[in-house]
């Protein structure tokens, strides 16, 4: 199989994928992929362009249906065939383009598609209270007014609003696609802090990232895909930069094998 799942935290993962295949016509995008995502842990999904990170994410989000394999949610087998199946389980995705309507304000964006009503009309007061509570819980405090249009926000603020939108629905697993790709240093820090707060609230978080600085900054676990296969996953402390790069580029790392099989010993590479 070549699937290496290194030592995992105690207990059942919140989300498990086993033997997932996905092809598009003749193109095999995912081959026998296993993935574990744990509650209260940030898992970084790494891989080179075209390795299959986004396909895997979209399969979990229900945008693509998998060909073979099985998903497990809190230990139980589940089928995710459409985005609403994922939403029902509590899986939310923040895509790279964020999917915010610039002309709407923060509250309107956070509730888009799930507006609260009173007597058939929008219950703005209720929505505004709930939105501002969520933002306060996540300590997103830099916005001047919760009623300002999203067009007037900075990149980091927009990312924060998109994340807040995703976690507002009692979500249990949040997947973030390249959350810091377009951000400056300060804003990247804001977003990474936000990701840590999601973890501290007990959510399972998966971050897709190219940026190894961010990965080592925030991830508890690292999973690497290469050419559609999951080549390694395990505790972030069992990796260093070079091993991750090796896995991303060649699908293997001589040094990492030595470390992982050496039972997490702090010796070894470097």
């Amino acid at each position: 199989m070549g699937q290496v799942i290194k030592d995992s935290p105690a207990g059942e993962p919140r989300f498990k994928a086993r033997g997932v295949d996905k092809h598009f016509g003749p193109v095999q995008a995912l081959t026998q992929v296993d993935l574990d995502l744990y509650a209260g842990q940030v898992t970084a999904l790494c891989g080179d362009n075209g390795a299959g990170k986004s396909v895997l994410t979209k399969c979990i989000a229900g945008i693509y249906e998998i060909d073979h394999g099985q998903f497990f949610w809190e230990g139980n087998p589940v089928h995710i065939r459409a985005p609403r199946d994922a939403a029902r389980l509590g899986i939310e995705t923040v895509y790279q383009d964020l999917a915010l309507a610039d002309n709407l304000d923060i509250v309107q964006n956070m509730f888009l598609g799930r507006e609260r009503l009173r007597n058939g009309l929008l219950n703005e007061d209720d929505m505004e209270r709930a939105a501002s509570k969520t933002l306060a819980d996540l300590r997103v405090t830099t916005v001047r007014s919760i009623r300002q249009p999203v067009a007037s926000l900075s990149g980091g603020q927009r990312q924060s609003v998109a994340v807040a939108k995703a976690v507002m629905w009692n979500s249990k697993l949040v997947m973030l696609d390249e959350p810091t790709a377009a951000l400056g240093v300060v804003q990247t820090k804001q977003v990474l802090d936000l990701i840590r707060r999601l973890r501290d609230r007990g959510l399972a978080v998966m971050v897709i990232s190219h940026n190894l600085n961010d990965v080592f900054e925030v991830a508890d676990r690292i999973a690497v895909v290469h050419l559609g296969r999951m080549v390694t996953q395990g505790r972030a402390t069992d990796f260093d930069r070079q091993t991750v790069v090796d896995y991303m580029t060649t699908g293997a790392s001589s040094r990492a094998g030595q470390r992982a099989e050496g039972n997490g010993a702090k010796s070894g590479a470097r």
Partner: protein
Amino acid sequence: MEQRVARAEAPERAPDPTAAATIDVPPELVAQSLGEWLRAWLTRIRSGDSGVLPVILALLIITIVFQAISPHNVFLSAGNLVNLFQQSAVFIVLAMGEIFVILLGEIDLSIGYAGGVGAAVTVQLVQPATAKWPWWAAIIAGLAVCVVIGAVQGSLVTRLRLSSLIVTLAGLLIWQGTMLIILGLAFSGYPSLAGLDSNRQVIYNLMNGTIDPTISWIGAAIVVIAIGALLWFGDNHRRRSGLVAPPVSLTVIKIAMIAIVAIAVVAICNVNRAAFGTLAGVPWVIPIVLGVYFAWMMVLQRTKFGRYVYAIGGNPEAARRAGINLAAVRTLCFVICTFTAGIGLLLYASYLGGMSGNVNGGQLVLYAIASVVLAGTSLFGGRGKVLHAILGGLVIGGIYNGMGLLGLDVRWQFIVTGLVLLVAITIDSLSRRSATSGSAARV
């Protein structure tokens, strides 16, 4: 293998659009006092986002110019102002329909004649010599025809993904022909609304009938008190709950302005404007226009559907991912647009005292589009208010009316209206461009 996998994922890597865009926050959101609000408002105007200020200035300029140059300074006479309200009403109602489609980033060029078909049906159905339908049934039938037309055109645009410009351009021709056919039925001349039978009179009075002056005052008072109370208690409630709300003084000023406008309109309409005998009171068309305004304003600002219209205009992809049924919302917008146009053309028929094959639906729809764009609604979708239809419609109505007073014929009206539209969108686009470059410089 590597290549194939790469191809599978390639389309998903989109450029990131989250680069910071700084636009000044609307003043009413951050101001704690009137002074702060005014300062924020001025900053915002200087940065290029001027809201409805230009259209109000345009209204003032039109008033001053035409008052100065119209023969015997008749522009501001009560009789002419009431006439101006009536002429503008047609543009305003058409514009209030068009705005639903424009907010989506689409356009509907057909509404002048699509509404004309509805009005022609209504007028034919109340003719005592032939159909003899009661007025209300005839109106329902005419508007129902408009709903069907809107549903057909809307479905073509949303389900078959045809361009709304082309579909409604075809509609413009098709419905003009249809209108002429309906008007030609059973009569050598065109059907008229002049006559003493009650059914035709009711429709004639939609535009021309007046409400008794005393009742006009009472009605206006009730409307102002109701709106004032809603605004006051709504804002107060939000302030007490710690939600975003304008300062108290701003709420008071808003209510005062509504009261002043209401008093001015009723006072003007209650002047006796007849050369012989008496003709005074608010024409029925004003409450009709306000009714349509209030209904569509509530739909756009306070319902899920309205929220989705803005969302689709702003970012269709975000709306789709939020689970919104785009096709249904868009089709309904086309239906509302044509339905409202039916009301507009019914008012026009009432104004003309009958329906005629000379009704220029192509010109009417351009005036309607000009009205909303003049007042700041974006043709790219996602930005605009129903109020824009009223303010812009008054500007277009003012130009139309004033040039008529000057004795300039329709040729010059076309040219001047076209120029006004051109100037309006130029100013709008230039000010927005300077706003974005200004903010980029500030970052």
